[in-house]
């Protein structure tokens, strides 16, 4: 009886690991979409209401969801407290601090860091161009990550269960 319980636990645990690992790909797509929405909103704040950057980023943070919210909040607080030399550094610090809770890959983050290099350092037209470039990049990343998700989500779920089943069969 206890043995059967152990086997069931092994199968559930390995299936759970498979689901969690596959979930990373799903989370990446969700976070990229949220990031895209946030950048659109930041663009609106800068283009139409001419809000100063720390306020604009804080407003964006308040209207977004975790974990992107935390990143933007950190950036805004860094900019408010003047603890960094430029906007790029603030973005870089915030993203490296929150690296563990974000499912984004390095290329996604570097697309956003490229945007931060020009934020607040050129005129409206220059920033507009940079925003459209970044949004294009993020759109591409979303497409790439969607393809990766479709490929890998099912695979990891299936693999998790199968490996658990193999372990159970061998140890029976």
């Amino acid at each position, binding site marked *: 009886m206890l043995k059967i319980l152990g086997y069931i636990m092994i199968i559930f645990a390995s299936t759970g690991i498979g689901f969690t690992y596959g979930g990373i790909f799903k989370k990446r797509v969700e976070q990229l979409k949220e990031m895209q929405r946030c950048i659109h909103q930041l663009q609106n704040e800068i283009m139409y209401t001419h809000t100063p950057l720390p306020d604009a980023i804080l407003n964006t943070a308040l209207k977004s969801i975790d974990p992107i919210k935390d990143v933007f909040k950190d950036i805004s607080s860094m900019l408010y407290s003047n603890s960094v030399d430029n906007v790029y550094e603030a973005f870089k610090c915030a993203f490296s601090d929150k690296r563990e809770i974000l499912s984004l890959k390095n290329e996604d983050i570097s697309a956003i860091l490229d945007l931060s290099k020009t934020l607040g350092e050129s005129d409206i037209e220059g920033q507009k161009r940079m925003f459209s470039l970044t949004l294009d990049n993020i759109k591409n990343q979303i497409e790439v990550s969607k393809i990766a998700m479709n*490929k890998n989500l*099912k*695979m990891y779920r*299936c*693999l998790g269960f*199968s490996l658990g089943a*193999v372990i159970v*069969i*061998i140890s*029976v």
Partner: protein
Amino acid sequence: MMDISLIFKIAGVGIIVILINKVLEASGKGDYAVLTNLTGILIVLMMVIDLVSKLFNAVRTMFQL
């Protein structure tokens, strides 16, 4: 008399290995699929190696070698 459950065990491992193989190949990871097949073969070999050695011993004793 041989233990019949070993056959079922090998069949189970075989089915799961085929499943993993199909899934890996469908998601374009052919090299991992080959690796999984090899692992499956190895696992089954580990299961039967005891019996194979028993068989050899039986043959040896039968012919008094």
